[in-house]
């Protein structure tokens, strides 16, 4: 995680700060060139060029306003203490590895990191082996009757083993594959979050310049929408959704241990003794552990499958609608589908 935070900080301190002033200089330069062309156009008798240039000058002036607006937004975004806001809504899990006074990108990265390495996904990976052992636990019945005592090969025998693995064995392999893919999907999200600030700075800056010209206006709108979508909306969604899942999972995990203990021994000394003496404690321990592991598996499956989907749907919707507002309709999910 530290490497990702370092890369974010590098982006935030070095190239990021340069992009918006460079864009401002570029826009000013374009205005100067356009003004020169505007002045020269009547000299060569081209009033049509003069008309077009005047529209472009308005567009450039508007773009300068937008550059200033987005520059202020970007400065606010990178200095904004997202962690404290999310913590006030209980959407950020306080742990020893949590960054202090973190911005939106660091918060999103931390939430994703905790989910993958300490939270639901990490524990699902750990518990998979436990489930494998539990599924293979079961009595084995062996019966042998010999017609002549001492002669083992003359008689009747029957053998049977009872374990859930006989029914579910192949699913363990599927679950293992699924967990590997979920780890890969989470690693991809790490890369996107790590690159989000630079995507925001470069795409928005380029988009603001591109939308000055008529022929690249729609392309500029798309770049702005992509930059804001991936650079702001996506980390925001990750912080909210994974923050929620981490806090909920942390509490579920604590309640699960308590639940196993209550189910195994009961709530008082008498029931603990009764359960221990009757052997019910072992059965209760096994069943409640299996049930709780199934709960964790359900929680992890939902979090790992639904959250990326939800985040991508929201980002796609944002990019699509925002790009249309700024110039061009761009279907982010279709873009992804085409690539995949």
């Amino acid at each position, binding site marked *: 995680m530290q490497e990702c935070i370092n890369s974010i900080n590098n982006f935030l301190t070095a190239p990021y700060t340069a992009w918006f002033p460079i864009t401002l200089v570029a826009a000013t330069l374009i205005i100067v060139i356009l003004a020169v062309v505007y002045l020269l156009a009547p000299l060569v008798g081209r009033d049509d060029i003069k008309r077009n240039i005047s529209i472009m000058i308005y567009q450039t002036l508007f773009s300068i306003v937008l550059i200033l607006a987005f520059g202020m937004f970007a400065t606010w975004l990178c200095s904004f203490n997202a962690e404290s806001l999310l913590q006030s*809504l209980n*959407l950020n899990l306080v742990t020893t590895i949590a960054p202090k006074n973190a911005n939106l990108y660091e918060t999103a990265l931390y939430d994703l990191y905790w989910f993958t390495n300490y939270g639901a996904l990490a524990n699902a990976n750990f518990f998979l082996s436990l489930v494998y052992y539990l599924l293979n636990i079961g009595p084995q*019945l062996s019966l042998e009757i010999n017609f002549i005592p001492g*002669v083992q*090969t*003359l*008689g*009747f*025998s*029957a*053998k*049977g*083993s*009872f*374990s*859930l693995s*006989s*029914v*579910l064995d192949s*699913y363990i392999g599927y679950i293992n594959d699924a967990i590997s893919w979920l780890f890969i999907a989470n690693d991809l999200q790490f890369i996107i979050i790590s690159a989000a600030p630079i995507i925001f700075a470069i795409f928005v800056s380029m988009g603001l310049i591109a939308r000055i010209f008529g022929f690249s206006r729609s392309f500029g709108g798309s770049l702005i929408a992509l930059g804001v979508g991936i650079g702001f909306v996506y980390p925001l969604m990750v912080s*909210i959704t994974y923050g*929620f899942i981490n806090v*909920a999972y942390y*509490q579920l995990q604590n309640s*699960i241990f308590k639940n196993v203990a209550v*189910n195994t021994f*009961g709530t008082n*000394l*008498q*029931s603990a*003794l*009764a359960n221990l*003496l*009757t052997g019910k404690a072992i059965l*209760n321990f096994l069943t*409640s552990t299996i*049930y709780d592991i*199934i*709960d964790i*598996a*359900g*929680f992890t*499956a*939902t979090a790992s*499958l*639904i959250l990326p*989907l*939800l985040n991508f*749907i929201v980002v*796609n*919707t944002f990019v*699509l*609608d*925002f790009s*249309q*507002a700024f110039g061009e*309709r761009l279907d982010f*999910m*279709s873009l992804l*589908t085409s690539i995949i």
Partner: protein
Amino acid sequence: MIKRTILLVILATLILARTSYAQTQTSPDPCNYLYSALQSTFGALSTASTYKGLIGYSMLIILSVLMIVAFLYAIGMAFKINSLISFSRNEILENVLNFILILFVAGGIAGIDGVVIGIAQFGSSVVSTNQPSITNTASLYHSTCEYYYGDAFGEISNLILLAVEIFAISIASSIRFNLMPNGFGVTFQPFAWLNLLSKMAGSFSVPIVAITGIELVNVYLLAIIYYIFPLFLYLGILFRTFPWTRAIGGALLGLFISFYVFYPALIYAISSITASPSMQALAQSIIKTHAITLQANFFTSSLTTSINPGLTISTIFSSLIIEYIGIIAIGGINTIGILISLVICFDLIEAFGDLLGAPSLTHGGVLKKVI
């Protein structure tokens, strides 16, 4: 003396244990945790007062936009610029709609409570149901969670029963008679063919695991919707105040209305129908009738000319099919109910996309993209 003390301690232990032997154990139920314990942590997310800052900003933005638009309208009227006049009129109408939306949600999600409960109760009113009555949105989510969680664990019990049957079959198939007094002779394993039956019965685990998985995912999906989607309502209102972000605001409102309001109400209504005793009896009888017809027409008649073990396998297997299809029928219907509700909600998103001016959701085939 020591022996007496030990005896007394053991006796006291037994008496103590005996008195609490019948104590009921608490079963692991995530629904209580999701809608009671988590409510204290995340309750603020679904409370209107949390977002009063956002609502205040939205009102301020609406007023500012209205002032600017009124100014533009005046300029349009003064200089007879028709495009400016029509733009201003449109913007004024949009902002009035936003104002009404804010007034609606300013009172909290209590207003939405009535809509959600109304849809759920309308759906379940057609049948007599065993479901507990609902009084607010939280109880609707809790009740739906309990039903689907209970059904998922019912399916896991079916899985254990299946394992027991396979156990019995494997014992029977492993019976062998050894006639090898000097290490040489013959061994009979007359029920070895039951192994085939064991493999066939094992294939029933596929639908059971699938149903359990979908129902468990649905339990946690509902919790995610319940706690996170109210944020979309308020962000949607805020985004709708700016002309450039109006479409994304509409899209977020569409997501909220479809999934927070309609999805739980729909699956509650479907679960109410499947939970009613009359529907359960009807489903069981229809499935059994079809399965018996299948057994009579296909399994037995087509194999009457084959060897006897083959006929026996087919008869036992078809009986197993009847038994298991009957058992997993309700879980299967509930799973189909979840899928139908999802399809309806994705269609509703498109409808709300049309209504709220979100081009991303308008005839965009959202469901197609998700699939």
